[in-house]
Each structure stands twice: as structure tokens, then as C-alpha cells.
């Protein structure tokens, strides 16, 4: 398939503007460009960041995303360094077209720098730009929303990255759980773990290996804080294990080992990234049976791909919420030991 070509059809920017002025500029750009008449948007994407550098990074990801997933994208910089600044918004607007195989689809990108108290009322800024009848997804690349954030009332779904937040400290998983109970959440960290979950699940396909899932002795999960708790919580809940049978250990790379006994035979099922190579090795070792191994390349993980994957889903991810609840149970059990 041809690589899409993204061209800018028109742009506009101004400081200290009203929402109405930005809307008018956007409408003007679209009406003066015939190609902009064709639009197949599936959502309004709102990225909220705190600095210009974060905004640039978010816009780069959205550009990559736009090539495959047209949406109206708003990047909002809620400028934090001048809390007492008067209310004000600077805006830049781009109307772009993606051309692939002779077809062009238009999408829009808005960058809004919001100062003053308006930072706490982003919903009032976002709503006028929301496309009708399509979901609004709020993406927080480096944070979790504070309780009562009115923007969350306007959102149909929120995309977070618990790993990015975890790096900043705090009990992220508990906060994520509380958020997920209020609103459908897509956690990019959880999405990155999907290949691990799918490969581990795959080791138990087939009538020979499946019974081992009913007799799990012990599970060991290694990895960074977020991934190991999420995977541990997932296994705890899916396999209905007591917390004492799930061992978590810090490590640079993820590995999961499931030890089980079925029909009097011991079995070890392992998926692991062993080193710097972007490879996952899976291994089945059943007593008296052949030892099987498979090495696969890890899925490409660039941020736009995880985000794009998050945007294709709707509704609550119950398995994720279950994994979060399991992760909390593991934390509590650790505290009690």
C-alpha cells in the first residue's frame, strides 16, 4: 500500500482570540478549499498537555495518526507557569489533506494555548469544536485527570498512559481504577501489554495445554512497576488465584511464568523478553512432553500506533478494569505481608 501524503491546505493563527474567531477561521479555511469538503471523521480528539514541548510531541503523533485515522484534533496547552495570568487563548489552525491511492481525505488540527482560569474550564472551549454525532476522546499524554475535571463530563472516552504517569510517582493504578469506574478508559500501557497477554493466552490453546489453566500453582511476573502489576492483576483475576500465588518482581523487561500441574505432569509456560532485542520468546515445557519454543518480534510500539489502537475501541474495557482491581489487591496483599 502506498504511503499517505499529508499536505496542508490552509492555516491560520492569531493571539488572544475568542472561540468564535477560531471557529470562523476554521470554517473559512474549509470553504475556500474544495478538497476540504470531503471528510470522514470518526471522532473529535482532544489532547491536553502542559507545555509547548509536550504539545509539539502530541501534534507529531496526531500527524502520524491522521494518515490513517482522520479526526478533528485539538491540542490544548493548559499553560501552568502563570497561574494568575488573565484569561486568554492563542490559536493556530491547520486544514490538511491526506492523499492515498488518488483519494484525499481532509482533517483539521487546532492548537490552543489557554491561560488563566479558563484552564480549569476547558470543556467550555472544547465543546464548540466538537464534531456532531461522533465521540469525543480526551487524551492525556502525561497525566490523569483531577477528580471533578469538567472536561471529563464532555468526554466519551479518556486515553491515558499509566506508565508515563507512574514515572511521575503516586498510586497511579488506584487512581486509574477510580477513573475507569466513571468513564471508559484506554490505557496505552495496557494496550502495549496486549501482545504479552495474547501470546500467553495462546500457549493454552488446544486440548492438551488448556487443562493446566485449572491447576495453576504459581505465577511470576517481572517488569517495571505498571506492567508487572497490571499483568499480575490480570492473571490473579482471570485465573481466580489467591494473591499469595502471584509473585511480582522488578525487572527491566517483562516476563511471565505460569507453573501448573495437570494429570500428574508439571508444566511451565513462559513468555519473556530476555534482553535488549525487541523479541518475545514463548516457551512450553511439560514434563514428559516436547519442549516448545517460539521467538517473535515485538509489535512496533510507536506512540501513534498505541493511540490509534486505543481510538478504535469504544465502551468500558472490563478486562482492564478487572486487572486494575487485581493490581490493587496485590498491592494490598503486599502491604499486609
Amino acid at each position, binding site marked *: 500500500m502506498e504511503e499517505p501524503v499529508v499536505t496542508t491546505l490552509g492555516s491560520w493563527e492569531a493571539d488572544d482570540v475568542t472561540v468564535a474567531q477560531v471557529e470562523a477561521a476554521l470554517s473559512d479555511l474549509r470553504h475556500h478549499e474544495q478538497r476540504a469538503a470531503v471528510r470522514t471523521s470518526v471522532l473529535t480528539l482532544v489532547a491536553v498537555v502542559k507545555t509547548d514541548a509536550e504539545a509539539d510531541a502530541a501534534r507529531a503523533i496526531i500527524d502520524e495518526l491522521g494518515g490513517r485515522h482522520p479526526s478533528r484534533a485539538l491540542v490544548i496547552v493548559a499553560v501552568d507557569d502563570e497561574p494568575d495570568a488573565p484569561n486568554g487563548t492563542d490559536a493556530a489552525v491547520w486544514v490538511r489533506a491526506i492523499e492515498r491511492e488518488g483519494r484525499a481525505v481532509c482533517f483539521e488540527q487546532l492548537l490552543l494555548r489557554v491561560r488563566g482560569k479558563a484552564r480549569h474550564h476547558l470543556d467550555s472551549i472544547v465543546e464548540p469544536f466538537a464534531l456532531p454525532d461522533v465521540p469525543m476522546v480526551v487524551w492525556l499524554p502525561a497525566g490523569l485527570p483531577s477528580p471533578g475535571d469538567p472536561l471529563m463530563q464532555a468526554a466519551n472516552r479518556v486515553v491515558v498512559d499509566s506508565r508515563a504517569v507512574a514515572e511521575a510517582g503516586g498510586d497511579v493504578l488506584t487512581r486509574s481504577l477510580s477513573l475507569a469506574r466513571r468513564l471508559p478508559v484506554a490505557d496505552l500501557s495496557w494496550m502495549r501489554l496486549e501482545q504479552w497477554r495474547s501470546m500467553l493466552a495462546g500457549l493454552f490453546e*488446544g486440548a492438551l495445554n488448556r487443562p493446566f489453566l485449572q491447576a495453576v500453582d504459581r505465577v511470576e511476573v517481572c517488569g517495571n512497576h505498571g506492567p508487572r502489576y497490571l499483568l499480575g492483576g490480570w492473571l490473579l483475576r482471570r485465573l481466580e488465584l489467591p494473591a499469595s500465588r502471584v509473585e511480582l518482581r522488578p525487572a527491566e523487561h517483562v516476563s511471565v511464568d505460569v507453573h501448573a500441574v495437570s494429570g500428574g505432569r508439571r508444566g511451565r509456560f513462559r513468555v519473556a523478553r530476555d534482553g535488549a532485542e525487541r523479541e518475545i520468546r514463548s516457551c512450553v515445557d511439560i514434563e514428559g512432553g*516436547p519442549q*516448545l519454543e517460539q521467538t517473535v518480534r515485538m509489535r512496533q510500539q510507536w506512540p501513534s500506533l498505541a493511540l490509534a489502537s486505543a481510538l478504535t475501541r469504544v465502551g468500558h474495557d472490563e478486562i482492564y478494569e478487572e486487572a486494575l482491581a487485581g493490581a490493587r489487591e496485590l498491592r494490598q496483599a503486599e502491604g499486609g505481608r
Partner: protein
Amino acid sequence: MENPLAEATVERVAPPAVLVVFGASGDLTSRKLMPAVENLALRRLLPPGFSVVGVARTDFDDEQFFESMRQAVEKAGGGGEEARHVWESFAQGGFRYVAGDYGDPETFKRLKDVLDEIDATRGTAQNRLIYLATPPSTFPTVIQGLAQCGLNRPANDNAFVRIVIEKPYGRDTRSAEKLDAVVHEVFEEPQVYRIDHYLGKETVQNVLALRFANAIFEPIWNRRYVNHVQITVAEQLGVGHRGGFYESAGALRDIVQNHVLQVLALTLMEPPSTFDPNGIRDEKVKALRAVDILSPEEVAQNVVRAQYRAGWVQGTEVHSYRDEEGVDPHSQTETYVAMRLKVDNWRWAGVPFYVRTGKYLPKRVTEVAMEFNRVPHLPFAMSQAEGLDPDALVLRIQPDEGITLRFGAKVPGQAFRVRSVSMDFFYGAAFLEETPEAYERLLLDALLGDPTLFIRADEVAQAWRIVQPVLDGFEEGDLPLARYEAGTWGPPEADHLLDRDGRRWRKP
């Protein structure tokens, strides 16, 4: 027992199994099946130990077979650094080869030994997916050979043996019934996966989503609103190097009996109550059963067959069919068929279905176009609505997958003039996912034991029931063979078929 870890994972990994390919040195294996295996492995959907055993007459050993498959996949656009692990992993005994004649029982004994060895060393648990990628004439021989060695039945309650059978499934009603008898003597129907790769196309499945997930289309999907339906499966290519095969098939057997009738069935069918394999297939069979059988006289009036002459296709001069390699210079084989079909049921009575397929048409396109009745009264002067065609809904299956809705709109200005406009939706513009190739999807479904997108015996029988009178008409010489210039939309006779009804073919 379910796999609690597999729940809510987006894609399900196949169980440990051996894929046994008969016709392993053939074109289908190297162009379609092996690239599909590589892609499934790249998507991490094959388990450790998954193995391929090729069976064919060509004198390969395991290593030569492995190497030839690796190179074939590379030639088909796969391989490379990204797939290095996949092939390294397969190199550890994952590709085996049995050379032999399909008529020789020794071939199957050797196959059985190899399969037993793989089960012991690679944990494939006696699960087998047998794929017949051989010429149809060999199907009975291979099937009987499998049975003689007990390779047709699972070794225990936990294991599976499934057989995938490529089209064409028979040459006519009688031969299809005969083949079915051979198959059913050896395999139970739930073990049989008759493949029509068209059903593996994401956009063919999208016809089901469009019809049964939307409340706005279904109420108008009937005789009350639909004036007629046109189904086009146009190919831009000629017969190429398949002339020899094509001489004994023709467009009716090669495309109409399977692809066209499958698309027709999805268009005609009633909403299934469940989306399980039999829910959908039961409705497809009911739909095909409602298609009226043409009498010999009706065949003469409602079917056009034609063959391409030399012409120009996309700026390239091409030969006449009769000058193609492997084709009889006086060949009477059709490369184009157009038909007018009637459907006798409550929903479609009186609505004609025009179907057409051909080689060397101006472009590759598959679509279902539904033209609606005009409004009962037009409150404008005729001159005001000169540019107004009937409303139409077009489901484009390939290549620009999507939907077009044609309707009337006012031309801006002081005068009140109405003309038709088209609103296009492109499937690829709204969805991120890269769609898996049809063979990839269907191979995985067969490994997972999901027959929804495979064709059941009664569906095949219904399809032949519709096609048989037309074949008889061809063979008895009742229907003259028209000629069309390559690169055009078919012969004038096909236009007359619609002219008579006051209609014309769409230009897709």
C-alpha cells in the same frame, strides 16, 4: 473448557496443529497459502510448534521444500528482516515434505509417519488441517488415500482433523454431488471447509454489517423500494497463463457459481437470528433456494455469454482469448457472462437481479448496486429534473471499498433545478486497521474451527442448481457465443438484456 486468558484479547491464537498441504509445489501454495502462514506467524497468531507438511509429486526433501517456500513468500512480497524469526523458528523442523503420487498408498503411509513424528516432537496434539490445493480431479484420490491411512478421523476426542477444499467444487450438479458423496464417505460435514476466498474479504463481510447493524437500510431493502439490483464482478486481467485451466472452466464456473452467487446470497438473505456459523449459512441457503431456475427458453432470453477479442486494456494492447497460451483457436469458452435472475420470495418478487462478470473489462471492480424506484410523483417540470437519476445505493466491495449513495439535490441558483449527486464513504478512510488477506483470515478460522465463512454442502448444491440450466444451455448450443472487445464493458447483447427492461448497466 474455555480459555479465560483469551477472553477480550483482540485476536485469538490458533491451537497447536499441523497444516498438511496437498499440491505443495503449486501456485496457490506459494502465492497465497504460505504468505498467509507467514503473516499469521508475524501477527503472533500461530502457536509454538505449528508445522507445515507439504505433499506433492515434485522431488523435494524437507530442506528444499522449506527453502522454496521461503523464497516464494519473499517473491510474493513477504520475508525480509521482519520475518527472520518466523523462518528461523520454522527451520527447526516446522516444515516437512512428503514426495509422492497421490494414488500411491505409500505416500499416505509416509505422511502418517511424518505427522506422528511431528506430534511427538512439536506438541501438535494430533490436530490436523488438511488443505487440498490440488487440481479438482485429484480430490477423490487424495480423500480416499487419507481414509485408507486413517488420516480422516481425529485420533481422540480432543484432537481435530479438518479438510479445506478449494473451488471449483465440482463441474456441474452431478459431479458436485459425486464429489460430496466421496467427501462424506470419509469426512463428517462439520470437518469439511469448502473455501471461496471471496468470503474472507473484509468488505464482503461488511455487507453483513451494513445490512444487519443499521436500521436505515433494512426497511428499504425489498421490492417495495428497490427497482432492480446489479451485481458486477469485473476483472481487468485476461486468463494469463491459466488458459488451459480456463478452457475447461469458463466464467460461469470460475466466477458466477461461487463468487457472484455468494455476493448475491449476502444481498438477498434475511437477517439471521444469530451470527453463528449455521445462523448465517441457513439464511444464505434459503436465499439461494429462492432464486428462480431458468427454463431452456428463459436461458436463451436472460443469459448472455461472450468471449473477448483483441483490444486495449489500460493502454496496453492485448490478445484475443483464442490467441492465449493453452487456448483452442476455435474455443467456445465464455470469458463473460451476464444474467437476469428472478427471486421468488416475499421480499424480492418482481425485482430483477442483473449479474455480470468478465475478463479484460475496463477495470477491476466488484460491487452491488441497488437502484430505487422513482418518487411516485415529481412536483417539478421535467425540464427542472433533467439531471435526476433514480436514487441508488452502491456497496463497493473492491477495490475502493465503501458505499455510495446517489440522490437528488437542488442545483444552487435562482432557478429550481434538481440533479443527482453522489455521497461517497470510503471504508479505508474511517478505519485504521489494515485488513488481513482473505486467505489469512480463512486459514485462521479453519484452525480455530469456525466455519462461518466457508461453504456448506447444501449451499454448493443450491449454487449448482441455479447454474446448471445455464450450463446445459451453453453445452447444447442454445446460446450463441458473443464477442466483445477487450477493455470494454462487454458485448452489445449484454446491453440489450437491460434495454429490453428499459434499464442500462451502470458504469462502475
